């Protein structure tokens, strides 16, 4: 009897342990992905984390990774991305060599948390994990890693930019202080020399001058430069007792230009000639503005038209009407794709940087003129850099010096 009981017990134990082992084999825990870490993403506002783990060189074909992030202490996983085992290595993170040490031997994934969880409070903790899939089946999983992203105070990746800026500022102050002692030679700019001719022509013909400051806002550098030129042009207009009209697209620009023109008339000793409607608002809509100014040019047949500032499609609409009305036309813009239109329709065109230089050129103030030298020096530095950079990168590519190519490319890249 006892033997029978023992036999039954032994059979039961064998069957039970067998089924338990089978169950354990069926739903057992996946292997652990080694070396998985979660770090704060460097040089950001504290809205991203960086996940890193070593590349597995023995990964079978069809192996993929899945990344999960959770804002909860347990569960709540949100799938971020899925990618092939050969993708997203440390070399793919777009940071320069002085700010990033990632290599092809590790995976590095940047996770933008604000895209997944919206705005979250500072100090919020997130949990991240990675899963390894082989032909769609879970093969391994990392241990969850927690991270509280922090905002950084310096973009180390922009160090090259900062050094270049500091160099430019140093040269700028040197040039400005140098200008106080010595005069500087500035090459002649035909378009600016023609301003006197244009205003003189308008005075002789008794016709108005149109000054169009474009459709840029006051935060646009070209509009600021245009305001400087307007100051010098309106001073000459006041001296010649001619007549200028400045139609505006932007009310803020109009307000600034009113002050500029008023000041110019005052400096020219003709405050009595100043009228408040010299600067007038037309429309804040591009084509309404173009249509209105075109109408004015067609009706009033000005002797001279100036187009200085930021222009888009209306550039040709304005310049062509001005050309057919027989006005002498001087244009200047920093929008490079509008320059061909001005070149073909206007008598003189200032290209980008000449527009910025125009205020200094016309005012002839030594400190402003000296700043033009900084522009020239900047261009020289760029030319030399492009020349040597081209040679070094070509040599690097030819002889397989990847390190040299990366150093040169990183140095001259914007981040």
């Amino acid at each position, binding site marked *: 009897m006892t033997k029978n009981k023992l036999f039954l017990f032994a059979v039961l134990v064998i069957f039970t342990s067998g089924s338990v082992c089978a169950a354990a084999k069926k739903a057992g825990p996946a292997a652990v992905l080694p070396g998985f870490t979660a770090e704060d993403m460097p040089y950001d*506002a*504290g809205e991203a984390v960086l996940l890193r783990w070593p590349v597995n060189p023995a990964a079978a074909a069809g192996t993929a990774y899945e990344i999960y992030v959770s804002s909860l202490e347990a569960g709540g996983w949100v799938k971020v991305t899925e990618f092939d085992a050969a993708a997203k290595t440390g070399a793919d993170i777009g940071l320069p060599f002085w700010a990033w040490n990632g290599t092809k031997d590790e995976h590095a994934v940047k996770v933008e948390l604000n895209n997944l969880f919206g705005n979250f409070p500072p100090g919020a903790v997130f949990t991240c994990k990675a899963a390894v899939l082989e032909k769609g089946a879970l093969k391994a999983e990392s241990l969850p890693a927690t991270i509280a992203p922090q*905002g*950084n105070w*310096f973009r180390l990746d*922009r160090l090259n*930019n900062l050094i270049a*800026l500091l160099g*430019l500022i140093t040269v*700028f102050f040197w040039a400005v202080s140098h200008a106080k002692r010595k005069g500087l030679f500035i090459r002649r700019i035909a378009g600016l020399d023609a301003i006197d001719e244009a205003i003189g022509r308008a005075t002789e013909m008794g016709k108005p001058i149109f000054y169009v400051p474009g459709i840029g806002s006051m935060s646009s*550098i070209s509009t*600021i*430069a245009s305001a400087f030129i307007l*100051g010098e042009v309106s001073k000459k207009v006041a001296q010649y007792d001619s007549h200028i009209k400045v139609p*505006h697209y932007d*009310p*803020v620009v*109009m307000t600034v230009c009113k*002050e*500029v023109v008023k*000041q110019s008339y*005052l*400096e020219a000793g003709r405050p009595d000639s100043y009228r408040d*409607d010299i*600067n*007038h*608002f*037309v*429309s*804040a809509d591009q*084509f*309404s503005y173009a249509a209105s100014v075109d*109408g004015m040019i067609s*009706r009033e047949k000005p002797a001279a038209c100036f187009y200085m500032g930021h222009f888009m*499609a209306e550039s*040709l*609409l304005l310049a*062509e009407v001005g050309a*057919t009305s027989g006005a002498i036309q001087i244009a200047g813009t*920093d929008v*490079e794709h509008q*320059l061909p239109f001005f070149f*073909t*329709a206007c008598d003189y065109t200032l*290209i*980008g*940087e000449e*527009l*910025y*230089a125009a*205020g200094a050129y016309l005012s002839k103030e030594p*400190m*402003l003129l000296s*700043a*033009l030298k*900084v*522009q020239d020096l*900047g*261009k020289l530095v*760029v030319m030399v850099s492009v020349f040597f950079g081209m040679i070094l990168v070509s040599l690097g590519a030819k002889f397989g010096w990847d390190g040299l190519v990366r150093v040169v490319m990183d140095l001259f890249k914007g981040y």
Partner: protein
Amino acid sequence: MKLIKKQIPLAIVFITGVLTLVSYYVPHKMSVNYIETINKWENIVVAFAFLLGLVSLFFSHYNKISRKVDGWGYSIFVFIGFLAMVVPALVSQGKQMTDTGFTALGWSYKFIYTSLSGTMFAVLAFYIVSTAYRSFRIRSLQAFVLFIAAFILILGKVPLGQIIWDWVLGWTGRGVNDVIEWIMQVPAVAGKRGIMIGISIGAIVTSLKIIFGIEKQYMGKD
């Protein structure tokens, strides 16, 4: 007076300029918030300034009508156009669409404003033709180069041009599209980049002049 008209504005320009410049190198949330705040302020200032613009517009055209200057009749259309958009906007409470279709504002926007804007933009095509005619009058070496480049581009964009090219220059083994691609990718991009580099350096120097108060013509002279 000099303090209010010169020194305080220059100090504001300097502080705002330096902070904005520094924010480019500081990724912290505080820096992001600062830029957002400045942008909001700018929008508010622009909104108020728009009222100034409107007053200037009405004042200018009212003067033209009252003084009966040449073309004063056109000025009436400024007021008509203004009313044609503002009255429907008020009636429609700013909505362009309802469940039943266009509101009065939506109708005015689609059938008056958009049509007129489209017409103005379409005029550009005719102006491009007349400008092209003017620029094709070869008066210098540069104009000749421009003409050749433009001619090849025009030729390549029409089937007949491609047939002519293949017939005349097919023996070279190069299609007109190869030449167009080279023109667009090499000389055009090289010229464009040169201009852009000059513009960028000029913009930086102009910004420095304004930030450090060397360029202050925009606020008048002492």
